[in-house]
């Protein structure tokens, strides 16, 4: 009964997490060969202009740059996680909206009201790397926390797969010898790397 429970959990958890594992595998390859992409002259971040307008809205008195950014993003229907640079009295405020597929750079000039939206040109390796690095509970949005939880679930699942996989291997008597050899080889090689590079 315990064995069956372990096998089913191993499998159903893996099926649910297929998209995450796929992204982590592909992104690891892309990051491991980052030199290939940079050598090709493929700049990691390129933006193209999406729109330009004069912002006619008004901000509350004493509004902080962050409050201004939130209002601008809401007006543009681009609400979500962002980082920013600049102050209300600065020449311009730059907002980077962290969209997973198409991040956007919004540049606002408080004095003239000039508002420009640029969209990051899609490239597979930067998309993969972005997804790989997205994590943590530092943002104020529920969905960001949900993503961070999903990342933690993947971490827990990896540990669980290792343990339950070990259990299932040991139950298959016919595989013990070759399985043991693979395990020893892996551990030995990992140990060699650990102390030599």
């Amino acid at each position, binding site marked *: 009964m315990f064995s069956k429970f372990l096998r089913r959990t191993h*499998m*159903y*958890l*893996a*099926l*649910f997490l*297929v*998209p*995450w*594992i*796929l992204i*982590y*595998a*592909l992104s*690891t*390859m892309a*990051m*491991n*060969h*980052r*030199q290939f992409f940079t050598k090709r002259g493929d700049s990691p971040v390129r933006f193209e202009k999406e729109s330009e307008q004069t912002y006619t809205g008004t901000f509350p008195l004493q509004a902080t740059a962050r409050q201004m950014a939130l209002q601008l993003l809401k007006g543009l229907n681009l609400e*979500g*996680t962002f980082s920013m640079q600049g102050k209300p009295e600065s020449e311009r405020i730059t907002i980077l909206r*962290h*969209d*997973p*597929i198409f991040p956007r750079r919004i540049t606002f000039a408080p004095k003239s009201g000039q508002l420009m939206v640029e969209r990051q040109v899609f490239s597979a390796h930067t998309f993969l790397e972005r997804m790989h690095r*997205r*994590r*943590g509970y530092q943002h104020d949005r529920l*969905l960001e926390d949900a*993503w*961070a939880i*999903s*990342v*933690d679930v*993947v*971490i827990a699942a*990896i*540990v669980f*797969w*290792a343990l339950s*996989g*070990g259990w*299932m*291997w040991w139950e298959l008597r016919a*595989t013990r010898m*070759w*399985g*043991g050899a*693979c*395990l020893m*080889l*892996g*551990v030995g*090689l*990992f140990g060699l*790397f*650990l102390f030599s*590079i």
Partner: protein
Amino acid sequence: MTLNLLLRRTHIYLALFLLPWFGMYGISSLPFSHPEWFKPPDGGPQRTVRFDRSYQITVPQTSDLRETGARILQDNGLQGSFGVYQPNPQRLNVYLFSFWSATEITYFIDQKRLLAEDQPFRWSSFLTGLHARGGFEQESLLNDAWGVLVDFVSLGFLVWIGTGLYMWWQLQPTRFWGGLALGGGVLAFVLFLWRL
């Protein structure tokens, strides 16, 4: 040997061989996801100065500073894996590292001064160092071999997905709940892509 058996055995033997990397990537993800768990309450031990001396080297105005970094290490009797970066026009930093230790070498260009500081061992640095290590820019065969293994682990993940899906489909009674789990995962992931 049938295809079915071949796929099952590939799934299990590959997993056993790659188990140390698999476990390492799982555990070493924690300091990235929860950096606050690994922060020492008192800030932890400080760096120690290994040397602080006069030194002169011409830093080229090109983006590839690796040669200069290698020369700095060679001139000062240091060796190992390293990275080079220039945080500002007056500084050049060479980061010398292994899994267990790290030394930050700062060249103050305008002062013609070289400072080397050893970083104290920290579990978070050890784990993140293991996790982030990869690529093929180091000039040693073992480093390249590690890079190849990182590719192999990534490929392993893809093989587990493929063979796992095959084995699931073979188990007829699990198709419904398995399909639900797979569909649920894909749906949740697409939702994240769309709404994050």
